[in-house]
C-alpha cells in the first residue's frame, strides 16, 4: 500500500495512509501515515461502528493539513474496543486552511 501511495504522491496528488503494520510502513516510508494497533482487516474499525470509522477517516484527512515532514508516521491514540467514540468525530476539525 505504501508503495502505491508513493507513486500517487510522486505524481502530484497529496496522500495519507492508515496502517496497521508499523514495521512495513517504516520500511516503505510513505509520505504520511497513521498507525493503529488494531486487528488486520479493520483499519477503520468495527462493522457498523460509524463513529469509530469516521474518527479514523477524519484523522486521516486532518493529517493532510497538519503533517509537514515527508515520511511522517504518527501513532493514533485510539484503542480498539475500550474507547468511547461518541462525539469524537465532531472534535476533529478539518477547516484549517492548507498551510
Amino acid at each position, binding site marked *: 500500500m505504501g508503495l502505491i501511495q*508513493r507513486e500517487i504522491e510522486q505524481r502530484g496528488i*497529496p*496522500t495519507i*495512509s492508515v496502517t496497521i503494520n508499523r*514495521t512495513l510502513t517504516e520500511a516503505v516510508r510513505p509520505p504520511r501515515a497513521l498507525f493503529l494497533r488494531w*486487528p488486520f*482487516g479493520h483499519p*477503520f474499525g468495527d462493522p457498523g461502528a460509524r463513529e469509530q470509522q469516521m474518527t479514523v477517516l477524519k484523522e486521516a484527512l486532518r493529517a493532510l493539513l497538519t503533517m509537514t515532514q515527508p515520511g511522517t508516521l504518527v501513532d493514533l491514540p485510539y484503542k480498539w474496543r475500550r474507547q468511547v467514540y461518541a462525539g469524537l468525530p465532531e472534535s476533529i476539525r478539518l*477547516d484549517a486552511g492548507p498551510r
Partner: protein
Amino acid sequence: MRPSFLTWLFSHVPWLAERWAAHYEGVKSADVPWTPLRKPLAQCRVALVTTAGVHLTDQPPFDMKDKQGDPSFRELPPTLEPGRWTITHDYYDHRDALADVNIVLPLDRLRELAAAGEIGEVAPRHFSFMGHIDGPHIPELTGRTAPQVAGLLQADRVDAAVLAPA
C-alpha cells in the same frame, strides 16, 4: 470464504506479520515523495484507495493462485450497491469487511463528510488492489499499475487520496 490458517495467524498474531515485514527487503526506500495540499479540504475532491481486495461482482477477481500475489487493480464507483461487490483476498479474515465494507473502504463515511461540507466532493471513482504482492510483481506494481492509478486520479482531478490496507 473460510479464512485459511495463514490468514488466521496473521490476524491473531500481529508480531508474526511484523516479522514478515521486517524481512521484506525489496521495498525499503530512502527518499520520500511529497506534494502539499493545495486547497482547503472543504474544496477538495477526495478519492479512496484500498488494498483489501474489494471488487465488483462483474469484475474479474484478484488472482489467488499466484503465490506472489496480483499487482492489478479494479476501478470502483463511489457507491457500492449491496450484492454487487465482494472481496477476493486469501491473506486476511475479511468476514467483517464483507459485513460492512466501510471498515476497509469508508465510502459511506466519505459521502457523509461531503454532505456536511467538510470535504468538497467524493471522487467519481476509487481504486482497489489486493495488497499481498511479492517478487516480480513489486516492480510491476511500482512501475506500471500504481502509476496507472495515479494517472487516473489526475484525470479525475482528485485533490487528495486516502489509502488503507486490509
